């Protein structure tokens, strides 16, 4: 059973390696495929993000957010980081989105709540202008600074990741476990109401 799983993950890793080599112009046809995939992921990210930001119903906004998460996971695949792609789906789609759904449910943010009205057109235009700021400032800088870079580093495997967690990144690894514990304890402390019989049903 273990051997079968090993082989499966091995072939999966090869698939991702191939996807990554596509991004370098070894063969013109491959590069085209990679660009096509990249364009598809960008489409997912932009459309999902716009739904997440502009939808008047928060449940729909969260669904848009999930689409964006899938797009970013695809980007990680193209970057030859299959482990990160899986973690993206597991943590963001599996945990964070469920938390957001809980928040929507507990605050009774229904379709006729505070978000129901579309923001004023003038506010919307100002928001788009503000979002244009980083694009206009950082976009050309990124283009200038990175257009000449073609060298790539050797790809690390999942085993390297595990070793890194236990050697060079040991301190952040331990710290983040403390952060998670403190966050959980803090959340319980904030939301806990001692002595109330109705509990959260009163919400």
């Amino acid at each position, binding site marked *: 059973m273990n051997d079968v799983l090993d082989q499966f993950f091995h072939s999966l890793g090869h698939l991702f390696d191939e996807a990554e080599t596509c991004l370098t112009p070894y063969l013109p046809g491959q590069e085209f495929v990679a660009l096509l995939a990249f364009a598809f992921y960008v489409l997912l990210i932009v459309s999902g993000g716009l739904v997440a930001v502009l939808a008047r119903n928060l449940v729909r906004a969260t669904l848009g957010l999930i689409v964006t998460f899938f797009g*970013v996971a695809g980007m990680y695949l193209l970057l030859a980081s299959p482990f990160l792609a899986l973690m993206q789906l597991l*943590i963001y789609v599996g*945990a964070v989105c469920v938390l957001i759904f809980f928040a929507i449910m507990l605050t009774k943010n229904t379709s006729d709540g505070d978000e129901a009205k579309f923001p004023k057109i003038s506010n919307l235009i100002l928001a788009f202008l503000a979002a244009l700021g980083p694009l206009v400032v950082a976009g050309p800088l*990124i283009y200038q600074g990175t257009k000449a870079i073609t060298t790539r580093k050797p*790809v690390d495997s999942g085993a390297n990741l595990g070793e890194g967690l236990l050697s060079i990144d040991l301190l952040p690894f331990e710290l983040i476990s403390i*952060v998670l514990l403190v966050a959980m304890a803090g959340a319980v402390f904030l939301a806990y109401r001692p002595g109330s019989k109705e509990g959260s049903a009163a919400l």
Partner: protein
Amino acid sequence: MSPLTLFLLASLLLLSIGLIGLITRRTLVGLLISVELLLNGAGLAIVAAAKTASLTGALDIHGQLAALFVMGLAAAEATLVLAMVLVVQRRFGRSATETITVIKGSKEC
């Protein structure tokens, strides 16, 4: 145009979209959704920069692990924000951002 440029521009796009949300949303939950977009852009930029660049001396795994830590922080942040939204909802009855503009000790309190 190098692959790194493409990936960094994509993360910049995520940043901009998240900013639009931060400005236009009226409820705390909506703000949480926008912040998640911003954090995703940050993770993507970190991984892409450590992958291709000779910009930084970082190893490939450094980038991936840093993105992993960003994800962990995002999970912790979402938990805490959920608790805070609950507290605000209990105290004020709604979770719009405009309801929590008064702090303790000010005139209207």
